[in-house]
C-alpha cells in the first residue's frame, strides 16, 4: 500500500503541476509571477500533507521547472536569470521537505495511536474470552450441581411416596396371602385396611403431581410453554382460583382486594390461575390456621397490573428470596429458615409460577409486607395489546392438561 500511495503521490505531483501550469498560463498576461509561485507552493503544500515528503519534493522540483520555463523571463528556457527565482526554488524545496516530514510524523503518530488502540482491543477481546471461558466453566459446574439437586429431589420425592405405597401394599398382601412369617397370623381390621388403601391412593396422587410438575418445568425450560392468551377479567380468574383453593384454605381467613379500575388483561387465564393457586397453596401451607391470607390485584400503570398474595406466616429471609424460585429449592429444608417446618411442597410450584409469569412478559418476586411478619409474593403482568392478533389455534396447545387440578 505505501508503494502504491507514493506512486499516486508522484502522479498527483506531475498532473497537479501540469494542470496548475496550464490554468495559470491561460491567464498569464494578467497575473504576476508571485501569484504563480504562491499557487505552486500551495500545490506543494497539499501534496506534502497528503502524500509525504518525497512526492512533495518531486512537486517542488517540477513546480520550479514549470515556474522557470513558463513564467520567468526568459520564457521558454530553464535559465534562472534573477536571484529571486533561486529564492523561490529554495522556498519550494524547504516547504516540501518540512511539511512532508511533519505530515509523515503526524501519520506515524496516528499509526502508533491506531496500533495502541488495536492492542487494547486485542487485550480486551482476550480478557473477554477468558471471562467467557471462566463463566462457561462456572455454568458447567452449576449445571452439575443442578443435576445432583435433581437427583436428590427425585430420590426423595419419588422414594418417599413409594415407601408408603410399598409398605401398605406389602401389609395388605401379607394378610391376603396368609403367608406371614411372623409368629402370629395377621388380620387387619377394616379401618387399618381402609387406611392403607387411602395412603396408597394419596401417595399415587402425590407421585403423579411430582411427575406433572417435572414435565411442566421441563416444558418451561425448553421454552415450550404455549400460552393461550385471550382477554380475561381478573375478578373471574381470582374467583376460579379461590373456589379451587377452598379445601386448602378452609382454616384460613381469605381476604380479597381487587381495585375497581382494574382493566381486562390479555393473558392465558388458566396459566395465571395456576400461578395464583400456587401462591395461595404456599400461603396456606406455611402459615398457621386461623391467620389471614390476602389476595389483591391492582393496576400499576397503563401497561401493567399487579397481583399479590400475602400471608401471616414466616417472613422469608432476604438471602433466599430469589432462590425460592429455583427448582427443587425448599426454604424449610434447604434454606436456613431457622424454624423447621417439614417441607410440604415439591420444590417446583414457584419455579413453574415464575416460568408462567415470565412467559407472559411479567415478573414475580417476594417483598416485605407493609406491616407484620409474613410473606408477600407479587407478580405483574402486561395488560396486553388490543391490536395483537389472536394466538395460534387452541388444539396446538397441548400443555392444557398440565394446568389441571394440581391438588
Amino acid at each position, binding site marked *: 500500500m505505501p508503494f502504491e500511495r507514493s506512486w499516486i503521490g508522484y502522479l498527483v505531483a506531475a498532473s497537479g503541476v501540469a494542470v496548475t501550469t496550464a490554468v495559470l498560463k491561460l491567464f498569464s498576461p494578467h497575473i504576476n509571477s508571485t501569484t504563480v509561485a504562491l499557487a505552486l507552493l500551495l500545490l506543494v503544500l497539499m501534496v506534502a500533507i497528503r502524500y509525504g515528503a518525497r512526492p512533495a519534493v518531486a512537486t517542488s522540483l517540477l513546480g520550479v521547472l514549470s515556474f522557470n520555463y513558463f513564467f520567468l523571463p526568459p520564457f521558454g528556457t530553464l535559465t534562472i536569470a534573477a536571484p529571486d527565482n533561486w529564492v523561490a526554488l529554495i522556498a519550494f524545496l524547504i516547504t516540501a521537505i518540512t511539511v512532508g516530514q511533519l505530515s509523515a510524523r503526524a501519520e506515524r503518530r496516528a499509526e502508533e495511536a491506531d496500533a495502541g488502540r488495536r492492542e487494547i482491543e486485542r487485550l480486551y477481546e482476550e480478557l473477554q474470552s477468558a471471562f467467557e471461558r471462566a463463566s462457561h466453566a462456572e455454568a458447567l459446574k452449576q449445571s452439575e450441581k443442578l443435576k445432583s439437586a435433581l437427583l436428590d429431589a427425585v430420590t*426423595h420425592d419419588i*422414594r418417599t411416596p413409594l415407601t408408603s*405405597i*410399598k*409398605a401398605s401394599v*406389602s401389609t395388605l398382601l401379607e394378610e391376603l396371602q396368609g403367608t406371614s*412369617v411372623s*409368629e*402370629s397370623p395377621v388380620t387387619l381390621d377394616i379401618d387399618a385396611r381402609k387406611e392403607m388403601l387411602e395412603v396408597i391412593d394419596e401417595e399415587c396422587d402425590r407421585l403423579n403431581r411430582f411427575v406433572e410438575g417435572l414435565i411442566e418445568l421441563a416444558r418451561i425450560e425448553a421454552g415450550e410453554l404455549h400460552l393461550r392468551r385471550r382477554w380475561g377479567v381478573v375478578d373471574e380468574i381470582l374467583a376460579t382460583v379461590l373456589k379451587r383453593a377452598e379445601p386448602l384454605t378452609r382454616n384460613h381467613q381469605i381476604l380479597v382486594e381487587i381495585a375497581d379500575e382494574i382493566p381486562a388483561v390479555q393473558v392465558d387465564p388458566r396459566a395465571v390461575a395456576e400461578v395464583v393457586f400456587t401462591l395461595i397453596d404456599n400461603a396456606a401451607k406455611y402459615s398457621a390456621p386461623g391467620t389471614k391470607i390476602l389476595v389483591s390485584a391492582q393496576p400499576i400503570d397503563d401497561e401493567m397490573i399487579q397481583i399479590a398474595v400475602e400471608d401471616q406466616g414466616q417472613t422469608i429471609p432476604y438471602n433466599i428470596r430469589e432462590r425460592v424460585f429455583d427448582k427443587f429449592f425448599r426454604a424449610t429444608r434447604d434454606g436456613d429458615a431457622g424454624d423447621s417446618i417439614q417441607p410440604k411442597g415439591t420444590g417446583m410450584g414457584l419455579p413453574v409460577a415464575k416460568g408462567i409469569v415470565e412467559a407472559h412478559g411479567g415478573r414475580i418476586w417476594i417483598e416485605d409486607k407493609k406491616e407484620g411478619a409474613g410473606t408477600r409474593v407479587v407478580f405483574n403482568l402486561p395488560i396486553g395489546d388490543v391490536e395483537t392478533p389472536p394466538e395460534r389455534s387452541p388444539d396446538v396447545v397441548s400443555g392444557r392438561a398440565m394446568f389441571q387440578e394440581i391438588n
Partner: protein
Amino acid sequence: MGLSQPQRILIVDDESQIARVLRTGLKTHGYEVRVASDGVSALETFSDWHPDLVVTDLAMPNMDGLDLCRRLRAISQLPIIVLSVRGEEKTKVEALDAGADDYVTKPFGMEELLARVRAQLRRAAAPPLAEASSAVLEVGDFRIDADARKVFVREMEVHLTPKEYELLLHFVRHAGKVLTHRTLLSAVWGGNYTEQGEYLRVFVGQLRKKIEPNPSTPRYILTEPWIGYRFNPDS
C-alpha cells in the same frame, strides 16, 4: 410376644404418610406405637414413654436421625433401626457407628421391617452376653468357653488365632446387629486401624473358612455390602 404387655415402638419420621403406614402395620402386629416427627420430640417421647425400640428416618428437620442415634445411645441401649434411602449410605454408616443396630432401605416391604424389628427385640431381650465374662457363651450354633478360649460350632471345636477369636467374640456378643467395618476394626484392632478395611476382609475370610459349612456362601457372617457385617448365629 404379646403375652404380658405389648412392646412399644417409637417411629420417628417427618413424612406423615410413612409414619401412618408404619403405625398401622406395626399396631396390626400387636405392637404399641407412637410417632414423632423429629429428633427433638422423639427424645421427649422416649423419656416419657420408654419404648422398647426406635425406628427412625435419617433426614429430618430439627434433629436428624444421626443425631438422634447419638443422643439415644448416650442414655439407653434400646435397639434402633434406621430408615434410609439409597444415596444416604454415608449417613447410614455414621448412624450405625453412632449406635444404630440395623437399617432398612426405603422403599421396603412391611415384612422386612417386621423381621428386623423382631430380631432386634429378641436380641435386646436376651441376657446381656457382654457381662457374662466367666460364663460360657451360647448363641445359636455357637458355644464359646471364654475362660478356656475354646470355640465350638455345632458342637465341633474349631481352633482360632487370637485375632480370629476376638473377632468372633465380638460378632457373637452383637449377634443380629449390623456392625460397620469401622466398628469391628476399632473393637478388634484398636482405634488406629479403623481405615484398614483389608485386615478385616482377610480375617473375616479366615474365620469363615473355619466356621462356615460352605465359606463361599456364608450363613453366619453375612456381608452387608459397603457397610460391614452382620452375625447370624442360627444357620
